[in-house]
């Protein structure tokens, strides 16, 4: 039986402010067509949103739409629509929900989610991205720009890698200019990168605060409130200020020795994306044991900021390239991720690793059995592996997941 741990009733400013910022960004997208503002679809992982801003292109993120639909329990009908159109039950459900949204008439001309003016595939680690944006460009008729980012496979990015990405960034700038009719100004990009680095600083500071006992927030479930601002709104003044406020709020909680649950009994690192259709359920299964995630890998898909990397306004294009090439989880190998998690376990003093294995996302999950072997056999870190999905509610088996979580924490006690 789990102890009587309750979730502290807190929905602080961070949560509220994040919602406001994200809603206003969505509203901006909704007005884009009427205002004749050019938009660009982009992926979250290791993105170059700053460059789009400097090109005066409004960024759109299909992944965010997909996850919002999942949280609102709207993903299944969309997935089914896509499957009827020929997508396999084994394809990533993020893509299917996005395609389903289009087939359902929720996206396209005259809707709150217009078709993007251009589709910029920042191919950073995820091979499904290439397919997804090929399909999106095909559907929307928008021009597809394939920004090919070599996978991290050497100790540091090679000169050839950086050169290759930078030259593609220059080509993207030229395309952006032709689409927006706005002359690109490198100094404007530098200013955007200053704000970006401020947001990165703030996000990193928040993440270091979870080293405290108790951790002031759950670095898996609550990080989602920060992932919007860091991945989507990075480079705006609002995002930079948001993180400054967040640091302040979390520092207050640290001083008051308050965490997200009434008693922090287990500190975990959680690996893998969350089950968005059952976000709250999954959280409850953890928190009833007094388990708090002190770090998570999912919060670093867009960028790993807590180990010190910042965009450098003095080397704008090169530092954007470096971030895309190396400073994000997605473009690193799964085994490189073991090192990241190990550092989390050690420096954040975690008791256990929880792997949430996602059917949709082979990038994250293919081979997580090996990860479990490594942590249990080579490091002696108690490790739990549960399976479901981030978008498709059909793969979430609550009773089974609950049994495994309960058995795991019971054994940890």
């Amino acid at each position: 039986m789990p102890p009587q741990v309750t979730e502290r009733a807190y929905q602080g400013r961070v949560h509220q402010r994040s919602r406001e910022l994200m809603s206003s960004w969505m509203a901006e997208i909704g007005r884009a067509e009427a205002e004749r503002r050019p938009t660009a679809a982009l992926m979250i992982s290791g993105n170059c949103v700053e460059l789009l801003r400097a090109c005066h292109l409004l960024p759109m993120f299909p992944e965010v739409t997909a996850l919002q639909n999942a949280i609102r329990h709207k993903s299944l009908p969309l997935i089914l629509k896509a499957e009827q159109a020929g997508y396999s039950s084994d394809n990533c459900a993020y893509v299917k929900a996005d395609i389903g949204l289009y087939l359902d008439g929720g996206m396209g001309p005259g809707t709150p989610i217009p078709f993007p003016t251009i589709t910029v595939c920042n191919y950073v680690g995820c091979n499904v991205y290439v397919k997804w944006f090929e399909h999106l460009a095909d559907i929307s008729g928008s021009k597809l720009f394939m920004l090919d980012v070599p996978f991290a496979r050497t100790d540091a990015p090679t000169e050839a890698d950086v050169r290759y990405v930078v030259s593609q960034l220059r080509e993207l700038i030229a395309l952006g200019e032709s689409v927006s009719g706005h002359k690109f100004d490198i100094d404007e990009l530098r200013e955007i990168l200053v704000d970006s680095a401020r947001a990165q600083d703030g996000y990193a500071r928040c993440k270091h605060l979870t080293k405290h006992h108790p951790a002031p927030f759950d670095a898996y479930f609550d990080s989602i409130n920060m992932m919007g601002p860091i991945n989507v709104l990075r480079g705006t003044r609002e995002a930079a200020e948001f993180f400054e406020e967040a640091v302040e709020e979390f520092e207050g909680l640290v001083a008051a020795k308050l965490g997200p649950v009434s008693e922090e009994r287990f500190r975990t690192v959680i690996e893998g994306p969350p089950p968005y259709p059952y976000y709250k359920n999954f959280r409850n299964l953890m928190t009833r044991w007094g388990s708090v995630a002190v770090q998570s890998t999912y919060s670093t898909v867009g960028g790993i900021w807590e180990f010190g990397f910042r965009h450098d306004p003095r080397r704008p294009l090169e530092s954007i390239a470096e971030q895309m090439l190396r400073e994000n989880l997605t473009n690193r190998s799964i085994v490189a991720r073991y090192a990241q998690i190990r550092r989390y376990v050690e420096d954040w003093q975690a008791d256990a690793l929880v792997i949430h294995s996602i059917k949709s996302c082979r990038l994250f999950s293919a081979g997580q059995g090996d990860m479990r072997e490594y942590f249990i056999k080579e490091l002696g870190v108690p490790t739990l592996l549960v399976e479901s999905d981030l978008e498709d509610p059909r793969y979430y088996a609550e009773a089974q997941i609950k049994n495994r979580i309960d058995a795991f924490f019971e054994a940890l006690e």
Partner: protein
Amino acid sequence: MTVDRILEESRALIATPVGAVARQWKDAHPGGRAVAAYPVWAPAEVIHAAGMLPLSLLGGGTSVELTHADARFQSFVCSVAKSSLELAFQGLVDGVDGFVFSNICDVARNLGSIYQRNFPAVFVEYLHLPQNSTSPSVGPYLAAELRRLAAGFERVFGLTVTEAALTKSIETYNQLRARMRALYAQRIAEPHSVATTELYAVLRAVTLAPPEDSIARLDVLLAGLKDRGGRPRDRLRVVVEGAFCEQPPLGLLEVLEEAGCYVVEDDLLLGWRWFTRDVPVDGDPFERLAVAYVDQAVASSTRHESREHRSAGLIEKVRRARADAVIFMPAKFCEPALFDYVLMKQGLERAGIPHMIVEFEEKMWTFERTRNEIETFVESMLFD
């Protein structure tokens, strides 16, 4: 040598574990090294130019039981990734000194590093092959990537790839690919002269032998097939698409033909037939190979081509092979094939080309349902 002898040899070779193939070759070439590439494409030329034997790592087929790999890769991962790892756990790749993986999909991407972690003594390289098909910077980038691979061979094996040797290897592989193209052309012209299972055996043997030997074998075969005779039957001419990585069981290929099809084009072992024409041999060979990878490539689900629609290459194949229909044959859980299926299917429908889909797994062993489905499809087309 006769056609039958060649087929027999090829079948024997492909029944041999890749490790044993490597060891046999190394026994005959003391001090030699063997490097195997996971599908789809790898620069066999660079491996060959280092004086090594280029091989393919194509999974365990029907012969290998998973006892280790399924604890590492989940149930929703394709079989070829798991069985390729299993081969290593069971010592069936012992003798192969290095492995090359590339960014064909997220599974292969993860597999490369997991291979290296579990088998630190072997050389593992991961190539990032470009997905940008139009930037002027692609050629120089990929040339640098190929040089990086060559530098790895030098570092680990002490074997140098000189420009002269690479040029020579490109020439050798050009000759080999010309023969493979001729073989495919022969099948298009006279599909009754060579069964797909025969063609496949020969092709697969190419991935397990020095190119010089394969060239000799294909010459005999090509000469022999011309007077093999046989009468064309009333069968549906089909293109098989989607089996570019995991290997379909031979039984499935057999069933296709028994159920009334002539396979006249396919994407089996596509990486070994990557270039549509000879790779130029003047100038910097690394650059030549790199540019050809993008500009002289067959259409492939593992490479993005922004200059044409996803279905264009397939439709071109259908037209060139005078095929009546397409049979999609993706491996179970194979994301690149399953995603492309949708855009390709739409393209075929716009072009009025009939199609059907048959999913497979390398270990599949009963084909009755598939046989029925294909027979129904064939009948609906032939007797319409």
